[in-house]
């Protein structure tokens, strides 16, 4: 068993793809990565809530992050995965599933290498981004998933420009 403290202090991040952008979450937030299995849709719920799955005997709600944050919608592929994350909703830690386009690797990043999010000129709301990593000539955005799941009905992308920017690229 890995001690929680060690986990908190490691500098490992899982990187994954949403549309054309690469994002990262701290591994302490990540519980599991599942391949895309059939999801039971719950009637009368918003589209971005894809439904529920059976995760080792308990029921896990699954959300399509791209849908929730108004990214352009694409078909699910063989690479599409469900990240099982532990997020703080309200005052309780809750497990949620998040659908991402594909999962890349786990990278080790020294905290000093994480740059503060730029407030100008980027297409994502800095509220949900704790920092930016420059890794092999690519920019990876570190997500604050607690904030993301708590903010009701928000869009991660800056409304006007972002959607276009992504589609144009």
């Amino acid at each position, binding site marked *: 068993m890995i001690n929680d403290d060690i986990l908190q202090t490691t500098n490992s991040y899982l990187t994954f793809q949403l549309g054309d952008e690469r994002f990262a979450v701290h591994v302490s937030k990540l519980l599991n990565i599942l391949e895309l299995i*059939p999801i*039971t*849709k*719950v*009637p*009368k*719920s918003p589209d971005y*809530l894809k439904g*529920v*799955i*059976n995760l080792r*005997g*308990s*029921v*896990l*709600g699954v*959300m399509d992050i791209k849908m929730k944050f108004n990214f352009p919608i694409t078909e699910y592929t063989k690479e599409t995965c469900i990240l099982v994350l532990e997020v703080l*909703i*309200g005052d*309780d830690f*809750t*497990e*949620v599933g998040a659908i991402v386009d594909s999962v890349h690797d786990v990278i080790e990043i020294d905290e000093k290498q994480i740059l503060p999010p730029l407030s100008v000129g980027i297409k994502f709301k800095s509220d949900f981004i704790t920092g930016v990593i420059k890794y092999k000539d690519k920019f990876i955005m570190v997500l604050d998933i607690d904030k993301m799941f708590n903010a009701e009905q928000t869009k991660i992308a800056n409304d006007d420009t972002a959607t276009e920017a992504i589609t144009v690229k």
Partner: protein
Amino acid sequence: MDNFQKKFVEEATDLINNLEEAVLALEKDISNNELIGEVFRIMHSLKGGGGMFGFDDISNFTHNLETIYDEVRTGGLKITDDLMSITFSSVDHLRSLLDPDALKDPQINKNNEILLSSVEAILKGSGTEIPIAEAEEELDQDGDKQTIYIYFAPNESIMDNGTNPLYLIDELCTLGETKVFPRTAKVPLLSRFNYSKCYTAWEVFLVSSENINDIHDVFIFVEDDSELEITKVADFDVLANEGFNEKIQSLYSEKNHFDSAVITSLVNDLLEEKKSRMVNVNEKLKIFTKENVISSIRVSSDKIDHLMNLVSELVTTQASLSLYVEENQVYALNQLSENIENITRQLRDTAFSISLIPIESMLTRFHRLIRDLSSEFNKNIDFITEGAETELDKTLIQGLTDPLMHIIRNSVDHGIEPEQERIDAGKTPQGMIYFKAFYSGASVVIKIQDDGRGIDINKVRQKAIEKELILPDAKYTNKEILDLIFIPGFSTAKNITDISGRGVGMDVVKRKVDEIRGTVDLESKENIGTTITIKLPLTLSIIDGLLVVIGDTKYVMPLNLVDKIYAYEKEQFSNAFNNIIVVDGEQIPFYYLRKEFDIPGEPLDIEQLVLVKYEEKRIGLVVDSVVGEYQAVLKPLGKLYKNHEIISGATILGDGTIALVLDTNKIINEFSFKN
């Protein structure tokens, strides 16, 4: 606080609750000796326990109170209204004393002194009172006495170091009533007798309230090289029974010793006799029968939760087994699997009933509340309860206590009028609050009704306009106006009292009841009274369900709500006018779930109409097909779906897929409102 103290606090809380219950009953029937005995006994246990675990404040405080009730018990003192109210205040005070540092609070300390001095005042005046009744019940006066059998055979050389075994026996005799039998079988002939040796052994029956350890202490210095046996033979005084005395006497003269088997059988005979007498007494005085007849144990709620989880898992596993057997047609396993299913079902029901608590458990508090409030407001109120034995899940009971307290407070404060006003209005001088609980289908209903002045619709309307909740000229039905009371920040109380009118009224009640998935309904007629109805689902974590299919998804409906199932061709639904279909000559409104749930795809040619009970009516829900009965382990949908009302949870099927559990009441509510 160490573990023992925590245990004591837990037990003492129970004792104090029992005390309150007994005192309330005593107030109604002050000459009931059984109840007086009960009050005395509880105080006695509190005193003893308090002293033992270092709660000296409790023990000191209870001491004088106990003395009073001892006097009452023996007829030296009469129960007065004064004594009753001091006892009630003492019950409350005892609760606050459960905090070991309570007396550091100046308020509590002052209270402590006041109560102590009034208790003393009663004690001093005791001589002048007239005795109320002769104590005639000897049966339950044993208190916590027990009978202990001690066999003590000292080492022959015990007297070498100056110990006199007779002193030890004497010391035993100081602990309580004793019967001592020397065992002299080992005493040799006089020619071989050595005067410096001890040949005698002793058998002692001791009736005492000391615990076994204290008795052990008597022998602490000789224990190591003597034969010593200390056993408790009974929880009561066996020596008081003459038959027993005679028997042991004759046994002794016959054999010169006893063996424990003989004693046990003697005691058992005695117990039987005592029990049969107990039954007689209980028939006369039914109020405390439960404690005497039903034995119960204390189990931590964590353990119950754990048990429930295990049972849930077992039910899920069993479903997988059934599925496997069905798919593979293993003949030998078939019978086995059915047996397991049967046992699992029984286990599940038993495990459930463990976590159910009768509503009665919170009624004492309400009795007390009404008693206190009515004297404070100078109102005359009778509190009538019905269906106290109705059982609810313990978590529901916890969630309900506060809202119910609030409703009752409202009834006392705003509802019931002062006596004169009632007489002027042509009502009986005594107001009534009626509390009723009963099962209705898959719900438990709790009704609280008063015959007070009711709610003034115009006043509510006026207030709502003032607070800009409604427009002055808008038309509303009386019911809609009444429902405004549930809006946060709404309170019509003229004066702010310490119990109501803080603006956190019925909205909090509604919110709390919502939290446990219940509904609140309010009816009121001016001058006739107000009725509040709370309806709660029997939210249990496993339900018997009907498994149905719509599209790709399986759903579970609570089986106890399902009335009948009919098959119809799809056209009969699509052609139906205004969603009404005629079934067995009765017009039944139905909801086409495939459409209501926006499920894509073509319906089957033959579809199923499931009739479910809704309030007093039957409503149809149309599904693709019906699979069959299914024991569903309810699992929450999680935080992402926390606002989702029509689905009460999910369950995992034998093949690992998920079925959603439908809350049919909420579905019908939502769709009928929409239409």
